[in-house]
């Protein structure tokens, strides 16, 4: 039987993650990742997409994630300059595996992106592996799987999911 407080600890961590991204505090957000992390977003037509075999939207390791954050902080990341407004709702959090080192988590998300007269929601779920670290967690694996059939309203995945 898992520690009953574990889920609320994980939820607190995910709420912190959502707040940092919604507030565009990207350097603080980057500190939530381990050095051996991965951040993957499969294409909408292949939710099971595996970056080693398939084309995906995003397949970042730590180095590439730093590159993504550096870009988003630039005035020349035109799709996100000025920044869009985002609002992230994270729910249905489930612990699917637990060990002394790691916790696997599934959660649903809706992320609204508002900019230039449009509002488009990214709907999907997270498949996460959290590394237990001093005083909390860090993302080791962050996979954001979208439910939309295409990026019909979005044009791009220009924000972090």
């Amino acid at each position, binding site marked *: 039987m898992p520690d009953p407080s574990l889920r609320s600890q994980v939820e607190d961590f995910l709420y912190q993650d959502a707040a940092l991204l919604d507030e565009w505090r990207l350097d603080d957000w980057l500190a939530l990742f381990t050095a051996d992390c991965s951040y993957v977003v499969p294409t909408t037509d292949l939710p099971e997409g595996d970056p080693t075999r398939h084309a995906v939207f995003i*397949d970042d390791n730590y180095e590439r994630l730093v590159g993504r954050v550096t870009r988003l902080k630039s005035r020349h990341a035109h799709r996100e300059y000025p920044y869009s407004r985002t609002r992230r709702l994270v729910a249905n959090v489930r612990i699917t595996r637990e060990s002394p080192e790691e916790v696997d988590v599934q959660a649903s998300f809706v992320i609204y992106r508002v900019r230039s007269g449009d509002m488009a929601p990214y709907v999907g779920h997270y498949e996460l592996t959290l590394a237990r670290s001093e005083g909390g967690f860090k993302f080791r694996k962050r996979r954001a799987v979208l439910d939309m059939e295409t990026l019909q309203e979005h044009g791009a995945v220009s924000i972090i999911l």
Partner: protein
Amino acid sequence: MDVHNIVMDDPERGIFRVHRSALTSDEVFELEQRRIFDHSWLYFAHESELRNPGDYRRRTIAGRPMFIVRGKDGEVRAFLNTCTHRGALVCRHDEGTAESFQCFYHGWTFNNRGELAGLPGSDAYAEAFDRRELGLKPVPRLESYRGMYFVSMDPGIPDLVTYLGGLRHYIDLTMDSAEALGGWEVVAGTAKFTIKANWKLIVENSLDAYHLPTVHQTYVDYMDTRLEAVGASRMQMQSRLSGQSNGVSYPRGHGGFLHFAPGRTIANLSPLWSESAQTEVTRIREELIQRYGVERGSEMADRSRHLLIFPNLLFQDSHTGFRFRQIWPVSPSELRVEQYDLVPRDEQPELRSYRLEWSRAFLGPGGLATPDDVEALESCQKGYGARELEWNDLSRGMHRQPLASDEVQIRGFWRQWHYLLGGRPAGSEAGDRPPAPVPVHA
């Protein structure tokens, strides 16, 4: 604006302009559907998606629901995806393998050659009811070139080889380059995204090397950071787009730009790759030169090709991988993109992962570059709301042998577009000459 005057083409003065109603008007949009999309060869699928009998792909082509399938007899056919009885879609998945397609409405069943094989209660029909007449309706024309299947709604359109014309030189370079690696195959995972802009803006954008250093500065910065981390020199986008580059324009609106690019998995080294990857790329390059000669082999290996197969297929073979990017008009101010990456079937796994990494890094909707193109195109479309400013300018490089960062390839597209819409016959300019000799990098 009268469609005859919608393009201002004055090679003598070196001025080329397009009236912005070409990008905003409902009337022009309707004309394009009838005169361009109903009378062109339109890409449908790649042979690697249809390897075995029964393999099919369902796609919407020029607004029509269609599917393409390899029959039990081995032949590939393209059908309108609508039951000959009352109209429901008979193929209801985007891809798969099937011996037959049963309409779920009344149960009419078509085999994978399109014949009406069975229907419930066939005794209810008179003698004149001939099921041989009620097979699925084939798309009027279907032809393939180098593994690419195209369809046309125009039964009288010239054959595909004639249609592609001189552009085949570049298509062949890319297709030949992977022959020794098992040929190209489409990799699963399609980027499908919509942009709130006229479809011709992304055609222009995909043929436009002029915007690369400005719109994509963050990408260049990222590349420079990665290159400097391994002690290599910076990317030098500007010089890359001038010295060994050029734009080309062919009859029927095809064209593109070509430039020297390091870091092509076929087959040009990148300092970002491991030693074993460098060894493999060197081997591939040597093999190409042995097989095809120095001139052709090194052109395959060293130069990136960003091509348009008129009207709506971008054929991009660059350091960011090889892909087909197909553009569909949705409305005067909305377009849809379907983007398919291709990989050499027997590519070494390490090189495959580099190829996919750089494809995503740049040209996907989650990459470091494409989102900014989306922003630029939507920004242009919004700008056209200021109707008092009527013309876009595309005169760049009209007075010289065009560089990749000039606009000859974009003018070639517009001239054919204008011709098909009923404007003046496609003109020519100094730039429509054969490309400059290919530099050889030993």
